[in-house]
């Protein structure tokens, strides 16, 4: 099967929207992805004909809703090759999933002086909760530095990992596009006696995922970046670790019993799913997983390697020294997410000009301020591509960049 982008684009209604009579060139999928019609339909149809509470009621409508809800859990387990469906915990976004692991596992296992290893390319979601735990517990943070082409500098990894209890890192940088050697990093963590938490937000939507091959202990990602509805995040964790962890949020569904003087918790995953979840969105997420599975994640990855090659060739040949593209230059080592500096034009101004031709890119710090400081920038422009993007859209980006020079 060849990957038919033209056919795929038909599945995404928003790509046919004209803004000021011009089509949308959506290059912000690293931020959040667009939604195919099947996902929108699944959501609307469930809300129309099948909406009901899950878990707590015995009537048929509720039983059907529960089955549809749990089917997504199983589908996700298969999608990331998790050993068991009950290792999949639903949260509101990847950020909550990270906070859950960091606070629940962290409070139970980390004490003053314990070391945690992060990297210089982490998203705030994998930094700020650790800072909160530093303030609360007096743990210490260490950082894996970067090479000049935006890869992890692993020269001193073993000494950095010495006495470390947790190594928490991103599988792919949301700024540089760098794909990290997750399997190797998990093995190094385990060798050092640490657990490995993988922030898989940027890789799960874009390439095949196998948490067992990774050898990870926890992984997190978000529905909204993988063609699914907003409002759903996923935490996968090894069952034995999840079982040993204290609960995170307290309330309905996460309990076995509640008395005036205390409570006992339910089994995983319920233990970590307090309150009414995003029922309809989680049901509809299954359609996104099916959509991606049908396309084939290997094909998605291949498409993005081809796009990346085209992006690098086009921008470098058209703009030469006027453009500085951050991150690896080898498309095999990166995803199709490109942060760049262009002719000294401030990113905010640049994105504003690009928007005049409907080229939607993000300007800012991309929730990675420590990395921005290392790049020596307050902000960058980031163009991020996904399965529905085309080489013509790369050309549209390049044309729009050209026109920015008219103003500044």
């Amino acid at each position, binding site marked *: 099967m060849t990957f038919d982008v033209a056919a795929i684009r038909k599945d995404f209604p928003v790509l046919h929207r004209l803004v000021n009579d011009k089509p949308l060139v959506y290059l912000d999928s690293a931020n959040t992805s667009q939604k195919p019609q099947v996902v929108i339909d699944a959501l609307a149809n469930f809300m129309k004909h099948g909406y009901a509470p899950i878990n707590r009621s015995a009537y048929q409508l509720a039983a059907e809703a529960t089955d549809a809800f749990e089917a997504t859990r199983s589908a996700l387990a298969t999608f990331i090759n998790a050993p068991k469906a009950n290792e999949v915990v639903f949260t509101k976004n990847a950020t909550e999933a990270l906070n859950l692991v960091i606070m629940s596992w962290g409070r139970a296992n980390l004490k003053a002086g314990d070391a945690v290893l992060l990297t210089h390319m982490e998203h705030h979601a994998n930094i700020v909760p650790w800072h909160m735990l530093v303030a609360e517990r007096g743990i210490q943070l260490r950082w894996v530095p970067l090479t000049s082409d935006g890869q992890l500098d692993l020269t001193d990894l073993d000494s950095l990992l010495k006495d470390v209890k947790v190594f928490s890192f991103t599988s792919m940088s949301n700024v540089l596009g760098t794909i990290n050697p997750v399997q190797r990093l998990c093995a190094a963590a385990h060798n050092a006696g640490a657990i490995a938490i993988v922030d898989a937000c940027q890789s799960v939507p874009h390439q095949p995922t196998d948490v067992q091959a990774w050898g990870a202990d926890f992984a997190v990602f978000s529905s909204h970046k993988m063609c699914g509805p907003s409002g759903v995040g996923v935490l996968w964790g090894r069952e034995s670790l999840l079982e040993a962890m204290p609960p995170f949020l307290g309330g309905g569904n996460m309990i076995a019993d509640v008395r005036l003087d205390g409570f006992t918790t339910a089994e995983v995953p319920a233990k970590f799913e307090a309150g009414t979840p995003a029922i309809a969105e989680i049901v509809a997420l299954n359609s996104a997983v099916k959509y991606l599975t049908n396309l084939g994640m290997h094909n998605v990855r291949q498409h993005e390697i081809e796009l990346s090659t085209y992006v690098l060739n086009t921008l470098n040949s058209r703009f030469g020294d006027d453009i500085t593209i951050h991150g690896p230059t080898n498309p095999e080592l990166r995803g199709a997410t490109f942060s760049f500096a262009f002719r000294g034009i401030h990113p*905010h*101004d640049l994105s504003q000009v690009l928007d005049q031709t409907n080229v939607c890119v993000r*300007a800012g710090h991309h929730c990675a301020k420590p990395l921005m400081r290392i790049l020596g920038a307050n*902000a960058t422009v980031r163009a991020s591509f996904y399965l529905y993007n085309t080489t013509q859209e790369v050309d549209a980006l390049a044309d729009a960049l050209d026109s920015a020079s008219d103003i500044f």
Partner: protein
Amino acid sequence: MAGLEDLYREIILDHYRTPRNRGELEAPAVSAEGHNPLCGDEIRIFIDVKDGLVSDVRFNGSGCSISQSSASMMTTAVKGKPVDQVRAIVKRFKQMMTLDEDENSTIDESINLGDLEALQGVVKFPVRIKCATLGWNTLLDALAETGK
């Protein structure tokens, strides 16, 4: 470029390319720092207040054309003015930057914003309003410092 004339007026680009009053001031001047968490812009405003007058003002930091030009134009507008009048100018400017006028505050028509009127076009680009007001809010913080 079509559609952006309102935002990138010539005078704005001029202040961006050739900022006025860029730099720092030594103590006893005071300073304050402002951030735009959205885009990472940072600005620092230094002011020297003597005998109720903003006798000198400087700014530095980095940011987009709107935040930098607005700060530059702001320094020229307030330099040498009495603190009361400076506050009135800030208020007038922020009114101009508001899409929905606050019904309770009357507009002081006696204050002529002059070149600053060029920034009026920013209002059509709501995301950029925070860029335009960054320096001004930071100036208020700096004025508050002088009271301490």
